[in-house]
């Protein structure tokens, strides 16, 4: 696709500030604030620029309160920006045109969109009417989604009685029934167990393959970002501190490698011997040891390991991207 193709999402100089008042702790502070209020502008987004093309999945990471959710809510039209320009598929989100709303979707892991007192089946029927999905398309989409997420058994159970994992799957179906062109995923796997996390992730990947929507994903689980996104935006105090390819960042910031060592039979280890100069032990499980080592000192570290330990097998591997991002965020904190 040529790069001059109309950008699906174009954000320039976007700023959002919230006005909050400062309150000192305790009753005294409360009384003070009652009569004299000191207002401060809390900057949630500070002149950010972003362009996303069709089919891209962007991972948005940052600490709590960095501005991730604010950005997603502005892009989906829920809140108004303070200043700057936002265009999604050519629409200004906060104008909330029906044609715009029909083509987007937002999934918030911490906020239920489904009506708790209804079974999923009824919720989906309601969404069918809301999005005016033709009967045949609805049936086909629903059958596919229900099958892919394996929830046919619990379709007529009230949402409130479902497990968190089942509920999240229903939320995904609800969000994708109308085949949105832009999907915002805000912490889609939060609180889920490993199996459910994986199911959700696989499903999102599958949906992306088939429909090529734009996806913006925020998550605390680096595994989500690693598995789903190709592009990474790191946000800190309302500013983008990194925006680029996930692989590039991984290569650029792969400062460490991991050395997995299997010890020889009957090898007794003197704990003092594990305090090596060039590497640091990060995990020990029986005769398996895992060292973290500076990428430039792998040879030196290996020499040292062979010299001090009785080794039966050794394997050098790249540090996990998830850890790299995590480190990068810590550094920028």
């Amino acid at each position, binding site marked *: 696709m040529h790069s001059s193709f109309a950008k699906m999402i174009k954000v320039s100089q976007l700023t959002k500030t919230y006005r909050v008042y400062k309150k000192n702790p305790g009753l005294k502070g409360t009384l003070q604030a009652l009569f004299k209020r000191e207002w401060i502008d809390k900057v949630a987004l500070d002149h950010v620029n972003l362009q996303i093309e069709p089919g891209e999945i962007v991972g948005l990471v940052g600490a709590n309160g960095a501005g991730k959710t604010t950005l997603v809510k502005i892009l989906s039209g829920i*809140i108004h920006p303070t200043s700057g320009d936002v265009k999604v598929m050519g629409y200004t989100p906060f104008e909330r045109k029906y044609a715009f709303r029909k083509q987007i979707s937002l999934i918030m892991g911490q*906020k239920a969109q489904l009506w708790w007192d209804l079974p999923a089946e009824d919720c989906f029927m309601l969404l069918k*009417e809301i999005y005016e999905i033709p009967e045949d398309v609805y049936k086909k989409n629903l059958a596919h989604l229900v099958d892919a997420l394996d929830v046919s058994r619990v379709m007529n159970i009230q949402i409130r009685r479902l497990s968190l994992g089942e509920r999240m799957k229903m939320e995904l179906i609800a969000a994708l029934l109308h085949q949105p062109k832009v999907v915002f995923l805000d912490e889609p796997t939060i609180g889920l167990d490993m199996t459910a996390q994986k199911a959700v992730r696989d499903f999102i990947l599958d949906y992306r393959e088939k429909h090529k929507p734009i996806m913006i994903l925020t998550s605390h689980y680096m595994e989500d970002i690693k598995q789903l996104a190709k592009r990474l935006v790191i946000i800190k105090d309302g500013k983008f501190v990194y925006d680029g390819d996930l692989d590039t960042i991984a290569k650029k910031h792969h400062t460490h490698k991991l050395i997995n060592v299997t010890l020889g039979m009957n090898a007794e280890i003197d704990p003092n011997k594990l305090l090596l100069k060039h590497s640091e032990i990060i995990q020990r499980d029986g005769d398996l040891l895992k060292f973290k080592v500076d990428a430039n000192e792998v040879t030196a570290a290996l020499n040292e390991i062979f010299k001090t330990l009785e080794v039966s097998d050794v394997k050098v591997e790249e540090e996990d991207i998830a850890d790299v991002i995590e480190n990068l965020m810590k550094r920028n904190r």
Partner: protein
Amino acid sequence: MTKYLKLYSHFLKFSLSNSLQFRFDFTFRILMDCIFYVVNIMFFKVIFAHTSLLGGWTEEQVMIFVSAHLIVDALQMTFFSNGAWMIPVYINKGDLDYYLLRPVSDLFFLCLREFALNSFVNLIIAVVISIYFLTTSTIDFEWWQILLFYLLILNGSYIHLLIRIITITPVFWTHSGRGLEMAFWTLERFAERPDTIYKGWLRYSLMFILPFIALCSFPTRILFGESLLEVLGYCIGISVLFTFVARFLWKAGLKSYSSASS
């Protein structure tokens, strides 16, 4: 339009299946409202034990008015109240998000989602009461007067909802529990009395600022040979004007909606 009718049929279906789950609660609620009806009627009966005219209206005129008020109340309880009750909660908790994302009118969804079957039973009772007072009255009515009377009552119930929304919108800025809605429920009691008793600035305030006398007083006037154009013009004018005011304030509120962070 068909879309909204279809949606409403779903709302009805869901509400009906939910409301019959708790039979005792259901019956009690109907009984409570019946007590409310009896008290309202008794109140005026007591007054008319001491006087023969109230603000120029006779007892049978006031009784028809009371039945109009009971219908307006039952209508808003049946169609709007349960939905509208949640709006301030949604604004404060940031739960308005999903309503804003859907390609459908957010206020339609929020106000009409809950249909109260128990109040619908009360609505039927209220209509029966009004038919009783109309048929036992010594006044002669034309059929079109009666038709207009009921239509304007529907309009009155709509105005009731509009004023309520207007008093809810401050929640967007103040983040207080219910905004001015509590004041609304207090002031709403002005609607429980015939408008003829209000004079001067109070009357003007109740006609144009918080138009509570457009809910059931003016609709009742249509039966008593008042100027048709005046009554119709006023009632419809108020509902059009307040539709704009409510929409304007709602949109302004949404602009300030901060959607509590997750």
